[in-house]
């Protein structure tokens, strides 16, 4: 596979997390939030796992019913959107084979294929604007609760 066909998450500008099958992504630079579900979340896992577009399509065809061309288009569109949004960038350095998800999978029997649904990249561009819109009464217009943006906190910590 050509190295230019591999992508990586645009860190440190982008953070992401899989939450109950949904990928939530934040572009810290733009303050935009994104969400991927279903086939979108699956493609995301393959993309950041270092698989190329043909490899992703091959993998999806083992799991979903659908026209190869439709699936190819869907994968290319998704990768294009992720690039446009600055979420992923081409991985110029490339990755070694042991760092990548395998492109080919061996079938261990009959798999009931699901119908392929076109993935959607949901986007929320106003999350942080809304924080500024109605600041809590005893704080200032820079928003609530006036924390430095982009500083992740310990999981489970509450706003006290």
């Amino acid at each position, binding site marked *: 596979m050509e190295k230019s066909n591999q992508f990586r998450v645009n860190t440190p500008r982008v*953070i*992401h*997390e899989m*939450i*109950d099958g949904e990928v*939530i992504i*934040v572009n*810290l630079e733009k303050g935009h*939030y994104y*969400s991927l579900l279903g086939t979108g979340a699956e493609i995301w896992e393959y993309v950041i796992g270092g698989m190329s577009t043909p490899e992703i399509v091959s993998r999806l065809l083992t799991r979903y019913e659908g026209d190869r061309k439709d699936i190819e288009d869907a994968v290319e569109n998704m990768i294009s959107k992720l690039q446009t949004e600055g979420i992923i960038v081409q991985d110029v350095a490339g990755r070694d084979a042991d760092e990548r998800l395998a492109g080919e999978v061996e079938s261990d029997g009959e798999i009931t294929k699901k119908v392929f649904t076109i993935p959607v990249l*949901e*986007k*929320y*561009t*106003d*999350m*942080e*604007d*809304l*924080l500024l*819109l*109605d*600041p*809590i*009464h*005893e*704080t*200032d*217009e820079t*928003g*609530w*609760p006036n*924390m430095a*943006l*982009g*500083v*992740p*906190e310990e*999981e*489970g*910590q*509450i*706003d*006290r």
Partner: protein
Amino acid sequence: MRVLYISAFFWPHLGGIETLSLKFLPAMQDRGHQFMVITSFANRDLPAHDDHDGILIRRFPFLKAISGRNLPLMRKCIQGMAEVKSTFKPDLVHLQMSAPISYYHVKTLHVNPSPTLLTLHTCFGEFDAGVDTVLGQTLRAANWTTMVSEAVMSDAVKVYPEISKRSSVVYNGMDYAGISPEPLDFSQPCVLGVGRLIRRKGFDILINAFALLRDRFPQAHLLLVGDGTERKILEQQVLDLDLQDSVRFAGQVHPQQVPNLINKADVVVVPSRFPDPLPTVALEAGLLGRPVVAARMGGLGEIIVDGKTGFLVDPESPRNFFEAISYLCSHPQEAMKMGRAARSRIKNVFGWDRYIDSYDTLYHRVANES
């Protein structure tokens, strides 16, 4: 009816929405509705599970997760919202839209799907309500939307025209039981400003207007109630204008104390330089028979009838504010007449029973039609 009441802030935090909610929820419980409140911790050390006068409260770090861009915390919040929806099984969700808490509602719409009544308290003039926004998705997900003023409605229609088909204005209600107006005096005119001391509230304009007023009425004094990031700047402005003997900063006070302070004032001024949706202080002042001088901004034009219950003036103009306040100080009888007219208007247009009746009707309609 089981109602999930989602509000970014709630008791013991007491801002305008929260103070209103504390009266609203018991009144709606009396109409047979059962509530569960979902809110944030509001930067306080509070329990995640709580109860306030029989109203169950669940708190999650909703806003902290977003402002800190903390994805694991966001995950907990989404899971928490989903868990409450699946266990409480509401017949209706009543969402108070003030901060991006609605993101968590939108993300969990599929869990125990129930109709949503959305209440807008804010003018969204410069916002985008496209499908790529929390605001846009929240507006689209709502089965019905109420706005606190025509100003908010007009603004919402601009950003999302379709909302006009399924929305209505419901003015906040004023509960006037037990609050009686004290007579206006004007022997030593007391001018009052109440609100957060932040730039958009325009208290710097009021101080400049007061400097002109004191030249004409040396006995006049100004009381500013509230706190905020502009306080030091405003205090310096008072010193620069040599007004320190006539201007007092009372700091933040409990909302229950505000009516007493209003009752000691002769004129209440709301100098906002932004479209203030429906400032409670203007309603309280009218209810207590005080003429209000306010900027012609946002919902203030719906509270004050210019020349009859107070004066509406161009924002950003200290001279206009001065002239209006000065007129009232010079014409106490007319000011008293305006105060009486203001009280009558607030009771008629912003009454409590009308408010509760409106929401009771809407709850049933939205739940049944959906």
